[in-house]
């Protein structure tokens, strides 16, 4: 493009705000003055100036300045005169009582006292102490009264005034000491330095305003054909808008659910409030297991109804009954199994599912992504409620290799290519294993959950016969914390609107 064309196309791109500002730049170089001349507010003017700066038409310079403003009293004195002048004006050649003078001058006692002090220093009055203080004006005072006070002259300026531009610094210091007369504020001023291009733009006739918006009317009437449309600066930043979003945890849950659905698993759902029977006893967790103690589990002041099956479970705990197990020994207590609690794991759903399953339903696979609760105080790495990813495979042919297979598949889809199993212990699985995945970023193994094959003491009473049941309960919070790089896990349920609006979506 020719230089002239570039110049022309630049003119076409000018925003109405820029058009309003440009002609003012010849006479003015400071933001507030430009704004005033262009009849815009300062924010609009500033936006226009920044755009022009982007176009290379000018440079913006910020300058810090000390500005002097009138204080509360300053404004009053400017209008009605300095208190010392009013005081002086109330005096006469004869000694009069101070109180009379104060009344006459309409000053407050505080102001009058100050005025008196000032005038005395200047020999503008005489004092005499009798029963009360008496004052009269002097010759000096009379002369002063006939002239304009320097303070008054000072106040007549157009405020704010730049500190630097004030010549009589002594007077300024005196005035600054007086109560709420003047105040100094530091202000940043924006100044414009035009470039050659800017000067040309400011001087050139920008011509008629080019069309900003295409309107339905133009389309209807065909007038758009005669219009020239302003070219936009497409690189410029625009104000943010926000759309609706699902919660990030929900996004991850939906993805995880799809993985299990694709792998042929049916979803299990159920109550958060459960009996100890279903949450613990049906899973062969011994009644004296440390995890059942108060500090780990939220209990409610309720008593659960038990299914008939509880008697079988009792015997399994005590003697093993028909499971060929020894059982835990000791006495199984009904009041313990009737306790009501917030479910401590989603495995309670697996227990209930097994209890409803028939032989002809096999093989069957189930999953759940559900909330579980632990009685913990909130801190940056602990929540008292969190999601667990549960799964069971009820298949007479299932084995430990399959368990590793399912979990490896799952974690591959979650973005972790390597899965490791380590021996672990849970009362309801045998073998029990801990599942680690390799974190490619951190180059280390991270622990994500437990798994195993349900013990016969769990399966036989619930299902009615023995069958390998692969089972796992994996954590979700850690995966989410990793994905969104959360330093404080409480952010997950903080519901900060800014975070909710700006968090990236789950891109798996």
């Amino acid at each position: 493009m020719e230089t002239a064309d570039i110049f022309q196309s630049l003119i076409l791109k000018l925003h109405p705000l820029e058009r309003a500002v440009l002609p003012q730049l010849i006479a003015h170089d400071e933001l507030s003055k430009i704004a005033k001349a262009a009849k815009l507010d300062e924010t609009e003017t500033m936006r226009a100036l920044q755009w022009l700066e982007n176009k290379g038409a000018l440079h913006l310079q910020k300058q810090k300045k000390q500005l002097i403003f009138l204080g509360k009293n300053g404004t009053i004195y400017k209008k009605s005169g300095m208190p010392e002048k009013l005081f002086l004006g109330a005096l006469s050649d004869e000694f009069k009582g101070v109180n009379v003078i104060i009344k006459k001058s309409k000053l407050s006692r505080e102001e009058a006292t100050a005025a008196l002090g000032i005038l005395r220093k200047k020999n503008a009055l005489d004092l005499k102490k009798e029963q009360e203080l008496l004052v009269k004006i002097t010759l000096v005072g009379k002369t002063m009264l006939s002239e304009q006070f320097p303070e008054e002259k000072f106040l007549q300026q157009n405020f704010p005034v730049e500190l630097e531009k004030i010549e009589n610094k002594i007077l300024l210091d005196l005035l600054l000491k007086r109560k709420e007369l003047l105040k100094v504020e530091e202000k940043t001023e924006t100044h414009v330095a035009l470039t050659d291009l800017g000067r040309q733009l400011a001087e050139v006739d920008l011509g008629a305003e080019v069309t900003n918006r295409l309107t339905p009317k133009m389309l209807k009437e065909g007038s758009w054909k005669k219009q020239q449309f302003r070219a936009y600066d497409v690189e410029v930043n625009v104000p943010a808008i926000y759309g609706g979003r699902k919660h990030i945890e929900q996004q991850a849950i939906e993805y995880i659910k799809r993985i299990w659905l694709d792998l042929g698993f049916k979803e299990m759902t159920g109550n958060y409030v459960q009996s100890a029977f279903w949450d613990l006893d049906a899973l062969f967790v011994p009644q004296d297991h440390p995890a059942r103690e108060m500090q780990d589990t939220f209990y409610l002041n309720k008593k659960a109804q038990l299914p008939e099956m509880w008697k079988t479970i009792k015997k399994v705990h005590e003697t093993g009954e028909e499971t060929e197990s020894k059982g835990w020994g000791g006495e199984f207590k009904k009041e313990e199994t009737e306790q009501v609690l917030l479910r401590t794991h989603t495995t309670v759903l697996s227990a209930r599912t097994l209890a409803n399953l028939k032989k002809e339903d096999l093989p069957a696979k189930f999953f759940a992504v559900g909330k579980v609760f632990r009685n913990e105080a909130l801190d940056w790495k602990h929540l008292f409620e969190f999601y667990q990813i549960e799964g069971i495979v009820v298949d007479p042919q299932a084995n430990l290799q399959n368990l590793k297979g399912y979990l490896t598949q799952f974690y591959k889809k979650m973005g972790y290519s390597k899965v490791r199993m380590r021996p672990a212990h849970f009362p309801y699985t045998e073998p029990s294993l801990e599942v680690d995945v390799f974190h490619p970023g951190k180059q280390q193994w991270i622990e994500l959950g437990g798994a195993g094959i349900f013990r016969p003491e769990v399966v036989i009473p619930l299902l009615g016969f023995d069958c390998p049941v692969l089972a796992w309960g994996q954590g979700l919070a850690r995966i989410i914390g990793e994905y969104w790089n959360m330093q404080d896990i409480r952010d997950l349920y903080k519901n900060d609107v800014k975070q909710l609006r700006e968090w990236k979506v789950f891109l798996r």
Partner: protein
Amino acid sequence: MPTITLNKNEFEKLVGKELPLEELKDRISMLGTDLEKIENNEIHVEIFPNRPDMLSEQGFARAFSSFIGVKTGLRQYEVKKSGLKVIVDSSVTMRPYTACAIVKNLQFTDERIKEIMQAQEKLATTHGRNRKKSAYGIYPLKSINFPVKYTAKDPAKVMFQPLGFTYKIKASEVEELHPAGRKYKPLTEGWKEYPFFIDSKENVMCMLPYTNSHDTGKVSADTTEVFIECTGTDLINVQTALHMFVTLFADMGGEIYSLEVQYPDKTITTPDLTPRRKKIDLSYVNKRLGLQLTEKEVQQLLERMGFGYGAGEALIPAYRADILHQVDFVEDIAIAYGYENFKEEIPNVATIGEEAALETFLTKIRDIFVGLSFLEVKNYHLMTVEDLNIKMNLQMDTVVPLRNALGEHNHLRNSLVPSLLKNLSENQHHEYPQSLFEIGRVFTSHKDAETGVEEKEKLALVLAHEKSDFTEAKQTVDVLFKALGMKVNVKEIDHRSCIPGRVGEIVVGEEVLGFLGEVHPQVLNNWNVEVPVVIAEIEVEKVFALLRT
């Protein structure tokens, strides 16, 4: 879970082999113990609760040595007869079982004594379930006169000097004056008499489940012979504990001697280290693991876990507490085989995936609200009762409290609205409009429910900006029901959280599906919210049920 600390040099001596550090770390975690760290010649390991026999340096080294193939198979321990006797009185009904042993030819150092005391304490915590199921005592043999009596007595009538005390006190004062007495007092609730070990010269040896006595003294560096008693509520549990102790001492070089424990109805000899035999079905093992192990291989793997094997039966060491069923062998065989050596395999089994119908429905509702530019929030299910009632200007008596919550969140929420108002109050510094929704579980007391609590899935929404009003809430609710193809009506109701005359319930026929309204300024004040807010709460489970009929 308990953690033990091992001296690396001592440990290697006991194991009989020194492994390179990385291999040592790897092997420890693949044995079924959680390695915490190795530093300053100390190994810190977490022991899972099913293997209390590994809670001592000797026990852990024994298992590890077999696992890495140094000393495999069942360990043989010789038990000699001491000819001494312990008499169990029928009065000890509160803690009826004891098993005792003597170990001679020991060499103690202060270090070792400390280790043993640690193992003793950790065993009492785990295997003994904090002394509830069993507790243990170890005494220098020389000051005990046999036969020893295990008997219950009225503590007000027994005087003795607890270990660490400089004077005698009444046994009934132990619960007040002795730290263990204070700590374990809850275990003895309702006891009128307490079990004591008393020797033939009427010296009190200990008061259970609290403390030993000064009379019999404590084990010191010059002790070479000890008497061990384990007492509790379950005979197998106390015997297994005793077996853990005597094998631990034997691994230190001690010689085990048995005693006759004379119960009112029978006499048993303890310890009895004869291994328990249990049938092991080769095909069962292979099926569970997905392997084709031969009998020989199974034998070798069992031996690597310290078991013996012969004629289709595994020989279980007397100190193992965790073998309830043959499935427990399966795990040990898997550990010996190496969890890392199992292949990943997805079987060729056709099953059909199926999402829960309500969940599918809720996803659709979420999509509708996202389409309306709402942000989804997720709040805790637990709140304070102040948030649920007082701030909402309500007095609901169906709010369910928790019995033992540690934090201030100690009630189950009965509505989603309070959480949403809380969200608004915490987001005042962010741009408006703020349109939030939540789909979640709420809880109310209900005496007919299985647990006494009824749970429902609800949907709630809030619209907050300078000009939010009832119309906007109603428009939003209309969008939802139109999208669901349902026709609903709104009827004016009273609701203490809303401005009178600006709140209605959403109904279909007789069925109330929820409500919507402008939040009462008092409620907004309570929540410290400074813009007008409209709310709606809808029972989505009910809506779903209606749609299915």
